Structure formats: C-alpha cells, structure tokens
C-alpha cells in the first residue's frame, strides 16, 4: 500500500500555552533537575530571569498541545499504535519563564517511506507574548510496517 503523503506541506492553527511555576517545578522534578532557578522566584530573579524559568526541554510541555492535533490528524494518517518518535531537533531562543504565553504553529514538512517505514516530519515555531522567538523544532515520527 502506498504511503499517503497528501498532508505534507500542511499547516495547522497556532495554539497558545501559558507557562506556570508549578508546571515548571513538576517538569524539573520529573527530570531530576535541581537548579533553584526552576523552583524559587528569588533564585530565578537573582540569576536575571523575570520569573521562575523553565529548563530548555520544558519546550515539549508548551509545544506538544499545538503539535498533537497535527500529529494525530486523521488526514496525516499516522497509526499511533505503531508510531515511535524517530528524531528531534530543537533550537532555543529566549528562555521560557512563568507567566509567558507561548504560541506554537505546527507544520507537516515531509512524509516519505524508507525501509518499509513511514517517516512523518513536522516543524514547530514558538514565539512568546513579546513576539520573541523561543523555539524552533523539527519532530520526526516513524511508523513501522506501512
């Protein structure tokens, strides 16, 4: 069966995530990150941040709600049960702090078949409430047995 590639080039609506202190703390705790700038307002301010700051990989928390509708869109055709995350590229700009409102726009850039697997490549672009670039991401999902 040929791989359905019609969704390549498609964009989905942007969605906005409000960053909060407790979510940053929860994420940092799950990763075992102990730097007080992720937990304590005074420590964050002393280090030059306007509020409790997120670790870089917290980007998945604010970007995933925007990416999920794209990755799960039936028109893209990914079988979630046989999907694995193949690769990931992130490039960071401004740090994300509690109180930020981060808007992420997803796009599907490529769908192709290789070695009997389907490769689905998405890009994300995230900006904060001041229009500053926070993150660019490339998300590669692999579906076995297409």
């Amino acid at each position, binding site marked *: 069966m040929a791989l359905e590639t019609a969704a390549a080039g498609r964009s989905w609506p942007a969605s906005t995530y409000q960053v909060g202190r407790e*979510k940053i703390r*929860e*994420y940092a*705790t*799950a*990763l*075992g*990150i*102990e*730097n007080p*700038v*992720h937990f304590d307002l005074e420590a964050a301010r002393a*280090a030059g941040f306007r509020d409790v*700051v*997120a*670790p*870089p*990989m917290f980007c*998945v*928390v604010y970007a*995933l*709600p925007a990416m999920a509708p794209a990755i799960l869109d039936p028109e893209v055709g990914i079988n*979630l*049960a*046989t999907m*694995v*995350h*193949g*690769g*990931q*590229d*992130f*490039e*960071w700009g401004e*740090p994300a702090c509690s109180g930020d409102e981060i808007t992420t726009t997803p796009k599907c850039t490529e769908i192709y078949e290789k070695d009997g697997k389907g490769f689905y490549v998405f890009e994300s672009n995230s900006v904060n409430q001041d229009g500053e670039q926070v993150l660019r991401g*490339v998300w590669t999902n692999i579906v*076995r047995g297409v």
Partner: protein
Amino acid sequence: MADLDVGDQVPELRVTPDKYLPHRYAGASGDFNPIHIDAEFAKAVGLPGNILHGLYSMGLVARANAQALAGGDPRALKRLSVQFRGMGLPEQEIVVAGTVRSIDGDRVVVETEAAQGENRIVRNAEAELQL
C-alpha cells in the same frame, strides 16, 4: 572556555528511572501515549514492555550537558538534535556521555548519547551550548 578542549569527555550523568517514572513524566509533559504507561498495551503492539518517552531521555541529555558544562544554566543550551533508535526501559540505568567536537568562541558543540548498557537509546545527538 580556557579549560575546555576539543576531544574532552563531558562528565557522565547516570540516572536510573524507577518503575513509575514514565507515569510522572507523562503527567509532567502531557504525553499519555499508552506505550509509555501501559505494559500490556505496549506488549500487544510488539514492544518489550512500556518504554521510556524519547523526550524524557532527550531531557536527560539536555540536563547532563547543561549541568556538566554550564552549571545547569538554562540559557546555555542553544540547540539539541537527537535520534531515537533503541527502546529505553524503566528500572535500568541510563548513562549520558559526550565528547567536545568543536569550540568556536563561546560556542561549544558536543557529540553526546544516552545508553542503557549496550542499548543506545539516544544516538547521533549533537548539543550546542553557549558558555
């Protein structure tokens, strides 16, 4: 960074995620794909058991490099690109290691990976830090 040279090993990070880590990470990240939190479901789709989130393992790679080279400064990591190939499993030690590949002014590029024994769960990873 006067004390850093191309070819230097980045100090390792060793973490053993407990049985319930994938559940905590699912809650923290919002990724509740059942292959990560439901062993029966995972086995039914051909996996050895519920597997770690790739982005959790990538998070450890980010943590290891920022911690080792920048004292954990969240501003230091500018770029991280990884491939996920092996499946990461809970209750097995993860070792994140790296080697400095290039230094250009205050920008350092590290080749890095995360492994559980012989199973390289994050590979061909490249981290760029501003120090």
